[in-house]
């Protein structure tokens, strides 16, 4: 192990999240706190009941939609730097994960710590790209931190989706996609591939799609499934939360082809377990190569690894004499569907 700097005393990894003990602030805490910085709107990072919430405008809108308006706090634009006390500043930088997602750069007296939240390095028409930024401590996620995970180009997966639709004019194509982020990205990529037909939405999708459009993400013609006789959806693309795939609701569609858009679809048996006929490997997280490339590119003194397959990434760091440690945060293991 190379000799590194002392871990700064002004940040601590607690079970409930990252804590700034000198001012009592938290980043992505899993319980309600007085002052929270929130990287993005997914439920394992954002939750209701905080006093002040500081996040991007889109993330605050998402929190508003899901949990009700936070008592206080405010919007922080990308690139904006706010002072939060004890000479600590927080700068929000794009993370490329979902609409509004941010890395948070914390600085105090020349020490720089980046909390990535969740992030990806691929282009995404629904949010600005990740900005690699030099720092002393990089706190990274590790959702897909195994070398088996290499995400294919999204164009290939969208082409497979369109080909399945073409080949099955009598069946609906039911795409299970997480309601925040994945669903809108799949829609936007379908549009980019030239698909101009109405895309049908499960009721749980509608509000979030409208929120995206309010934030300037054009999604083309959308309609709720409830507005049509479900039998008429032959050859149509329907988007629903993954949990609705095998529901009574889904059984009323014309012989639906179950598709799931997720990084986990890379592993066949995972797909089979979820009763998937058309696995689409589409992820809003970094794959293995992107995670390791990001660590090399940002070149921090020390890497902290949050939720995911931290064992593999720790080993990879150790083999390259990169100082790293795993954080034991609660509540970050079961958000598989969002991946």
């Amino acid at each position: 192990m190379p000799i590194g700097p002392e871990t700064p005393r002004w940040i601590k990894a607690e079970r409930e999240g990252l804590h700034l003990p000198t001012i009592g602030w938290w980043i992505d805490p899993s319980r309600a706190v007085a002052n929270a910085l929130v990287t993005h709107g997914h439920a394992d990072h954002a939750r209701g009941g905080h006093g002040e919430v500081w996040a991007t405008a889109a993330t605050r809108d998402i929190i508003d939609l899901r949990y009700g308006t936070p008592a206080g706090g405010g919007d922080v634009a990308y690139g904006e730097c706010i002072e939060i006390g004890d000479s600590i500043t927080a700068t929000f930088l794009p993370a490329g994960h979902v609409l509004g997602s941010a890395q948070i750069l914390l600085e105090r007296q020349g020490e720089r710590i980046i909390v990535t939240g969740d992030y990806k390095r691929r282009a995404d028409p629904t949010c600005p790209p990740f900005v690699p930024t030099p720092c002393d401590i990089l706190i990274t996620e590790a959702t897909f931190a195994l070398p088996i995970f290499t995400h294919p180009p999204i164009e290939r997966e969208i082409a497979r989706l369109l080909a399945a639709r073409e080949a099955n004019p009598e069946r609906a194509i039911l795409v299970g996609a997480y309601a925040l982020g994945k669903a809108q990205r799949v829609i936007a990529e379908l549009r980019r591939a030239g698909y101009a037909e109405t895309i049908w939405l499960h009721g749980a999708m509608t509000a979030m799609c409208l929120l995206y459009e309010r934030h300037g993400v054009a999604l083309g013609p959308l309609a709720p499934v409830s507005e049509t006789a479900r039998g008429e959806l032959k050859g149509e693309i329907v988007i629903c939360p993954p949990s609705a795939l095998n529901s009574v609701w889904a059984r009323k569609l014309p012989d639906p082809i179950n598709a799931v858009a997720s990084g986990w679809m890379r592993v066949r048996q995972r797909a089979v377990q979820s009763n998937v006929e058309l696995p689409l490997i589409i992820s809003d997280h970094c794959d293995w190569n992107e995670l390791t490339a990001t660590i090399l590119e940002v070149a921090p003194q020390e890497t902290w690894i949050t939720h995911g397959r931290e064992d593999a990434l720790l080993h990879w760091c150790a083999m390259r004499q990169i100082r790293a440690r795993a954080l034991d945060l609660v509540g970050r293991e079961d958000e598989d569907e969002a991946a």
Partner: protein
Amino acid sequence: MDRFARLLTDLIYTRSRNGKLALLADYLRTVPDPDRGWALAALTGEIDFPAIKAGIVRTLIQERVDPVLFALSRDFVGDTAETVSLMWPAPQGPVRAAPGVSEAVALLASASRGTGKSVLAGLLDRLDEDGRFALLKLATGALRIGVSARLAKTAFALGFDVAVEEVEELWHAMRPPYAELFAWATGAAPKPDISMVPVFRPFMLANPLEDEEIDLRDYAAEWKWDGIRIQIVSVGGATRLFSRGGEDITASFPDVAEAFDHEGVLDGELLVRGTHQGGEAASFNALQQRLGRKTVSGSLKADYPAFVRLYDILLDGAEDLRRLPWSERRVRLERVAGLLDPSAFDISALIEAETFEALAEMRVQARETDIEGVMLKRRDSLYEPGRKAGLWFKWKREPLTADCVLMYAQQGSGKRSGLYSDYTFGCWTAPEAEGGVLLPVGKAYSGFSDEELKWLDSFVRKQTTGRFGPVREVEKSLVLEVAFDAVNPSTRHKSGIAMRFPRISRIRRDKPASEADLIDTLRRMIAAGAKADDTSKV
């Protein structure tokens, strides 16, 4: 390899049996010989490359990627072939075009122990992910994609519009890539003559007896013996023994094959005689010493002498008796059994019971280790392959149960990869209050529903107290009711006992761990006579 790889991928993602049949039938119809024959051999598990073992695949990948990262990935994926296909690094420089199935088979078959690794690596370099997956499945012979040999044969019959019984019957006289079989099925050649080849005939099987009340005037009763079902085939001086799946196991039991000197086809139960049982049949535990061996030493034959308890007769000489009712076949069987060497063959006796109630009582009383339950056979039943309703019933003994505490869990493979589905459980050496500790008494992988599996998996994740490689130790708080068929003494386990066929029968969230059973309770379940076949020589 492209078309075969696509077939495997499509089969994996197709759930309905009819969908799988249609995919397979289409493949067998449209792909030319000999590719389709080799594919069929792979699907039916009839392909074997002696130079290519699973160990070679692991060695190869560990030479190319970090072994720790491979191990972590393998644990996550739950399947070596898939893990390797996903991790295999792209070769440097230009590569030759992807090989077809036949080319791959030819290369793998010609490989020796010395060249196996380089042949396999050369092929992997020429394929994409799906191709590598298909190649590894083909090369190592374990497909595990939810297609049974029976399903593949059914698809063959469907694809060429022939009877599946005919396919089954010809099957064991054919060798991959089955040129004769395809020639017959496509109408290019007449049906192959197999009258002088010792081939396997599909077994007649029994359904479990549920609520049916049986009239013993219509049904004959005999014991269900706890060995392995076996078919003895002798024709033209050659004798073969086949297991239930039609696997040729003659090499493991040469003593039985040599002792059989009657042309025909018999159905029976293979058992091992325990000297300690006064020459009676020993438990399944003893039989296991003889299973799966390619060669058999003299001492093994002497210590665990095998014999067959005859149930039925299919052919007597060249005469096919399968269209006769059971009662007539039984007469023929008794005549043939009388001609055979009594040290290697006896006949499964009929149970004389006046009424069904009397039979039920006898079934409950039977606690010999070699009896699994009662068989009921319709006296007028023809010998029908498969499991036809209403003809034969198996009426197993009630399982034994014990309350055990979950101690360790491991992720499953295949369909259960990523789920903690293998459970090791224990019982107390003494009451906990008196300082007793838990010792493992068994391991179970079945008996639970999908819902219960999800719950157990989540319990393991939340209650993990230690990790030993892929094994998680859990908080010793969950009581599992475990069902099993018997308890045998064992020198291999610290607890001194081994359960036969344990499965989880219930999750007892209501019961505190301290109230789980004692090991002594299990020890008392060791059936009379079983003590002596403790396999201390192993």
